């Protein structure tokens, strides 16, 4: 006999005088079956939940990938922006979409106007919405092939916006600091101007203003003095280099329906 066999025998001897079960067989089987059913149900529930969560996560990931990059991020406030309320802008908007309490029909159309102008230049990687008591503004940090530009649209309650810029730019004045203004379009209810600034060199901003039916002003600006996400200010491409045209800006304003008919 080997010591292995001896050990087996000794182990058998250990259990040879086993005591009776504390629980009778019927009760033990009933408990095993009921407990097993509960475990099955729990496992099924966990599997179902897992499938639902996986599906939901997949849907969210797909949605994020599908959304244009322009609508994803929360940008820092552009330098000089005076916002009363700042909110993340939902990536996709439609006139029939359900909006937050600060949203108005004008905001929806304004956002569509911005999207149309942004599409000429590139894609927005950050966007902010500024809600004023009497107006709303969207600003997009746009990445173009030539570099970054800020594109903003705003509708405020102040009247005379068009006239003010007309006055400032009436003679294409250039100040000693290099600031200058040149009119690109001057109509009664809409005007488009380019403002230049040599501090730093190369700054150019396209400003379009249009009177709105309610007595306010609709503004569109394309500014190449841009605050990068890391906070640095850089001079990007001019609005022309970014691919934006006066004709398209004018058409976009007219098509938005926010401004008075172009006269």
């Amino acid at each position, binding site marked *: 006999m080997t*010591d*292995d066999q001896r050990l087996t025998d000794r182990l058998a*001897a250990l259990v040879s005088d086993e005591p009776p079960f504390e629980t009778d067989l019927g009760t033990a089987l009933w408990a095993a*079956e009921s407990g097993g*059913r509960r*475990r099955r149900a729990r496992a099924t529930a966990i599997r179902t939940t897992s499938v639902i969560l996986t599906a939901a996560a997949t849907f969210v990931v797909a949605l994020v990938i599908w959304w244009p990059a322009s609508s994803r991020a929360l940008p820092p406030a552009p330098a000089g922006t005076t916002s009363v309320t700042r909110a993340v802008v939902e990536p996709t908007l439609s006139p029939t979409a359900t909006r937050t309490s600060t949203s108005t029909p004008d905001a929806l159309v304004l956002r569509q106007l911005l999207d149309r102008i942004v599409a000429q230049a590139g894609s927005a990687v950050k966007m902010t919405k500024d809600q004023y008591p009497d107006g709303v503004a969207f600003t997009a940090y746009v990445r173009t092939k030539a570099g970054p530009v800020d594109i903003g649209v705003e509708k405020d309650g102040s009247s005379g916006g068009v006239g003010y810029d007309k006055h400032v730019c009436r003679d294409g004045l250039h100040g000693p600091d290099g600031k200058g203004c040149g009119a690109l379009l001057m109509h009664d209810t809409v005007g488009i101007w380019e403002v230049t600034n040599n501090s730093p060199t190369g700054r150019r901003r396209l400003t379009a203003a249009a009177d709105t039916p309610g007595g306010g002003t609709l503004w569109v600006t394309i500014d190449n003095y841009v605050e990068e996400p890391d906070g640095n200010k850089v001079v990007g491409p001019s609005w022309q280099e970014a691919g934006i045209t006066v004709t398209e800006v004018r058409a976009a304003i007219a098509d938005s329906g926010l401004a008075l008919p172009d006269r």
Partner: protein
Amino acid sequence: MPSPDRREGEVLDDTPDFREWAVAARPRLRRTGFLLTGDWHLAEDLTQETLVRMYAVWGRPSVHSVDGYARTTLVNQYRQVLRRPSRREHVSDQLPEVPVTDRHDHDDRAVLLAALADLGPSQRAIVVLRYWEDLSVAEVAQLLRVREGTVKSQASRALAYLRAKLPELAVSREGA
């Protein structure tokens, strides 16, 4: 036992099969549980929990060997119990209670139980699976998820310790 020709996803009433298996397996599982724990009460708890878990997976095509699955479940339960601080084994000078039938026999069993209790959980599981359940080294390694070399070395150390405690185990080597 589950029918060998059962198709995946097929819903059957497994209760008769399960009961037939459980009636036969219950005493066997409890004995193994006792050799692992040295405690009949705890062994019965482990057996009952194993039956619950077996019913939960009964009929699954992935469970190829019902007895093997039950054995693995029992050993896993044993390991879980050891991980619980309140149930962790402590070395004690007091020998466990063993029903007295014969004084010499009682002493032998008490010594063996004490020697088993001295072994670490893995060594003890290896001894029980290898020499009580009569599993091969490969089967023990698979069940405990360790390498075969580990099973061999652990079994060798455990046997050496048991031989030291129980000299009659060692004497037979020369006469084997």
